[in-house]
């Protein structure tokens, strides 16, 4: 354990974290007879890039909760969260909410009108696992991936027979989440159906700072109801082909918790339907993939503001061995976007041509080169190349040490709102454009019953033509006005020790993000040279797990540093620190039920904190969950 203390020392008292990113695997072999439904690993052509892998086990205790909760508590990423269950937008590497691409089963699901995803309407349960790639992914994944990309997956298996699972989660403030999952699979066919309903009265007490004497009141307007359906199917008609499809319908009905001091009773309904179909053909030297999908979003705000967007995707790519040691993937993607919003109607066609290649020069030295050109309605988005590499320069039986590096350009096409909003939309906007460079070191060490994975990454990024909305006369209008320089450090640690029947785990991460605005909008503006608002320079998180036999306990801690409220860095919010703890019990063999149960206390010290100014967050709260497998 001594070396864990050592590794965290570089960052003072900051504890360490989970899910160390690993060197992405190259040249994975296809096992067509295997039980896993095949999908191309997202990190396959991402040599040099940092990866956070979120497994089914990591998500276990977050069942029915928003993905927000997992990311906020278990990673170094920061989400601007407007309250529990309320709007939550992700900021990666000091970029803004729209500067990360979000995918579900390979389908980009950022709203084309808003250009971002509300992570509170992505309940854990709509997907089984996730990968988060930090840093520019424009060449590999297309628009929006300036700060990084988030990839959600459902994971089907063959040959599992009949499976069923019931999950229930009850907790403070009327929390009641329920899900039922039924699956059946044979050698060549697999199906799974899941339905869920997540409810919270969300009437947690808060201190009303806007009133004389700051009385403690309860929220009367924060109820959240979500329900949804996920259907996955996979079929292997022959040994050389696979057809798979997934559908996710999520309905969310929220009363919007007002800001302290406001008496608004806003409500928002979201209906999101996503459907994807993949066909793979596995030739002897190449693999064809054809993908089609639909993403249909409807957002209704206060009944009368109805905003509908629909996206249709068609893509085809071919992966082949170019030369010995060089594998490549070339493809095209076509996107048709239709928007029918309360403020405007718009449609758009996007065409993308992309090429990725992996060069395995030696067993311990690999490169990925990615290229992409996107055209939207006749406009050329910035041509994006990226070059990444990994070199394991030390390898022994006990440990591996490698360095990884990436140079990349990335971009974001202006959103439909940016260009077409009436009034104020600016059709002449350019794509936001970024250049980035990063360098990291990764260590994997194992001795006897002890293992340690850690990584340290340094990055720099220059973002240009950043779009901001400015008040212009009687309305607001967006302009390509801001340039931002981002610099940061990410540290991850994951260690395990087996000792006298105990499994001890210590994991943690620390993120340093300096995001410095380079632009004043006019002579009186005092924003240049200052950190972007609501972008904490420091965030740290750590967790200790102890398990023995069928029982496990955890203590999780997160610390978020000061956040400035506006671009001139005059007012700020204090850092906060939260502790969670929980216990989980796996029913033993021979027990009349199969499954597990857990109890969990969030915000153990009942800390009063605000993530965003005057946005309330709950104090100490409790959850009880049970999973029964048939």
């Amino acid at each position: 354990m001594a070396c864990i203390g050592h590794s965290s020392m570089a960052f003072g008292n900051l504890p360490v974290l989970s899910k160390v990113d690993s060197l992405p695997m190259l040249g994975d072999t296809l096992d067509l007879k295997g039980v896993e439904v095949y999908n191309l690993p997202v990190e396959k052509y991402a040599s040099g890039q940092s990866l956070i892998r979120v497994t089914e086990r990591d998500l276990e205790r977050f069942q029915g909760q928003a993905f927000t909760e997992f990311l906020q508590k278990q990673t170094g990423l920061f989400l601007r969260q407007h309250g529990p269950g309320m709007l939550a937008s992700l900021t990666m590497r000091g970029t803004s909410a729209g500067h990360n691409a979000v995918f579900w089963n390979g389908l980009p699901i950022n709203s084309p009108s808003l250009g971002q995803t509300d992570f509170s309407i992505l309940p854990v349960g709509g997907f089984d696992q996730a990968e988060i790639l930090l840093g520019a992914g424009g060449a590999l994944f297309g628009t929006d991936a300036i700060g990084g990309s988030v990839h959600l997956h459902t994971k089907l298996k063959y040959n599992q027979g009949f499976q069923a699972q019931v999950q229930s989660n009850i907790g403070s403030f009327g929390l009641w989440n329920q899900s039922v999952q039924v699956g059946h699979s044979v050698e060549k066919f697999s199906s799974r159906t899941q339905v869920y309903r997540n409810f919270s009265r969300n009437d947690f007490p808060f201190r009303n700072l806007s009133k004389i004497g700051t009385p403690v009141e309860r929220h009367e307007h924060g109820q959240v109801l979500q329900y949804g359906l996920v259907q996955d199917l996979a079929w292997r008609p022959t040994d050389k082909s696979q057809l798979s499809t997934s559908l996710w319908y999520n309905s969310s009905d929220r009363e919007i918790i007002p800001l302290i001091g406001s008496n608004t009773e806003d409500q928002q309904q979201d209906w999101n339907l996503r459907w994807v179909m993949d066909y793979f053909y596995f030739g002897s030297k190449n693999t064809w993939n054809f993908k089609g999908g639909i993403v249909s979003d409807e957002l209704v705000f206060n009944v009368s503001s109805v905003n509908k967007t629909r996206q249709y995707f068609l893509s085809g790519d071919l992966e082949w061995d170019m030369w010995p040691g060089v594998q490549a993937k070339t493809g095209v993607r076509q996107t048709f976007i239709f928007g029918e919003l309360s403020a405007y109607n718009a449609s758009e066609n996007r065409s993308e041509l992309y090429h990725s290649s992996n060069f395995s020069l030696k067993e311990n030295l690999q490169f990925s080169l990615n290229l992409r050109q996107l055209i939207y309605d006749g406009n050329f988005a910035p041509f994006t190349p990226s070059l990444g590499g990994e070199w394991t320069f030390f390898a022994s039986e006990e440990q591996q040490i490698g360095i990884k590096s990436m140079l990349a350009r990335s971009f974001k096409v202006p959103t439909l709102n940016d260009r077409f909003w009436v009034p104020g939309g600016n059709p002449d906007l350019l794509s936001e454009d970024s250049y980035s460079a990063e360098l990291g070191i990764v260590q994997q060490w194992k001795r006897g019953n002890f293992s340690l994975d850690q990584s340290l990454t340094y990055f720099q990024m220059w973002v240009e033509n950043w779009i901001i909305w400015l008040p212009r006369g009687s309305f607001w209008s967006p302009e390509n006005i801001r340039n931002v320089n981002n610099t940061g450090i990410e540290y991850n640690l994951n260690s395990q020790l087996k000792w006298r029947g105990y499994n001890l785990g210590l994991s943690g991460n620390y993120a340093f993000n300096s995001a410095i605005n380079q632009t004043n909008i006019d002579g009186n503006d005092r924003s240049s040279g200052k950190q972007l608002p609501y972008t904490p320079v420091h965030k740290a998180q750590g967790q200790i797990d102890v398990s023995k036999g069928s029982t496990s306990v955890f203590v999780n801690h997160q610390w978020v540093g000061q956040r400035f409220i506006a671009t001139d860095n005059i007012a700020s919010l204090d850092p906060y620190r939260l502790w969670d703890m929980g216990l989980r019990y796996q029913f033993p063999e021979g027990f009349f039920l199969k499954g597990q149960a857990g109890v969990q206390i969030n915000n153990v010290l009942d800390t009063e904190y605000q993530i965003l100014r005057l946005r309330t967050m709950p104090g100490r709260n409790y959850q009880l969950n049970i999973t029964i497998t048939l």
Partner: protein
Amino acid sequence: MKNVRLSLLLLVAAFGFLACDNEGPQIPLGEFESGVLIYNEGAFGANDGEVYHYKGDDDVSADVFERVNNRPFAGLIQDVLEHDGKTFLVANTGKVEIVDSRDFTSLGAVSEGLDITRSLVVYDDKLYISDWGAYDGDFNSPDSYIAVVDNLSGGAIQKKIEVSSRPEKMHVLGSRLLVANAQNMDIVNLEADTLLNTVEIKGIPAKFLSFEGNLYLYARDAANVYFHRINTNNFTVQSTIEIALAGATSNLTLGRNGEVYLLTSTGWPDYDDAVAKISLPQAQVAEASIFRGSGFYGIGFHPRDNHIYVADNNGFQGNGTVIILDESGSELRTLPVGRGPSGFVFK
């Protein structure tokens, strides 16, 4: 009487000095009785409205309300008014905070029952608070009202007088309350607290001005500004001064000799803002632009040093700036202030 009050003040101040060394912020009594109060509306969705205090030269103190009362104002400040030692901070997020004008300590509030509050006047020891009422489904305001509170220190609303849509500024004339609405002017009987009648107004009404014993209601449209002289006997429009001026906003202030300083904005595509100077006695534009810029959000005229105060919101990305001009429009000084500065109270 004045001397008695002063001695009392001195006594209290001396006692305060001796008694509480280690308590809260040391705000000298009477600190806010001089200088300029700058109210910063705050950004929508952030409720960070605050009051700044300017004491001259470069001396600006920030966040006066929070500093004195140890809690955020937590609202958007729409208007600030002073009456008989009390300062009323009107938040369009549905509250009125009442503080002691001398030291800004909280005296009370109207915090229940208001919706989108706009302005306030005092009559007969009662507060009359204009409020748009809650929006309907299409963001219209069909349920606008004037709330009546029977206590100058706030508390419960006694009555809501239904008025035309979107009441803004008000003016008390005898026992009548004149209400400038989005499209017309309402006359309220203050003896019975009932709506008497509605007067059609050319242009969009914004603000009442008193000049040479006459009361004017300022209104505007895309091409003209209007100063409607109100007949103080029957509360109708007696005559109108119409002046051609494009892009006038609702922000204006009365200077010396009937000179009105008014913010204009060209709108799309240039978004040039300017300060126009209008002569009321001559009924014409004296100078269409004495100062130019962008993000102009409020204007005031300092009656003693004859300086024009222009508030610049700096695009609401961060805090704003106040630009102090002389009467010819030459810039004298800029002051860093809070988010969305929009108005001034000159002491």
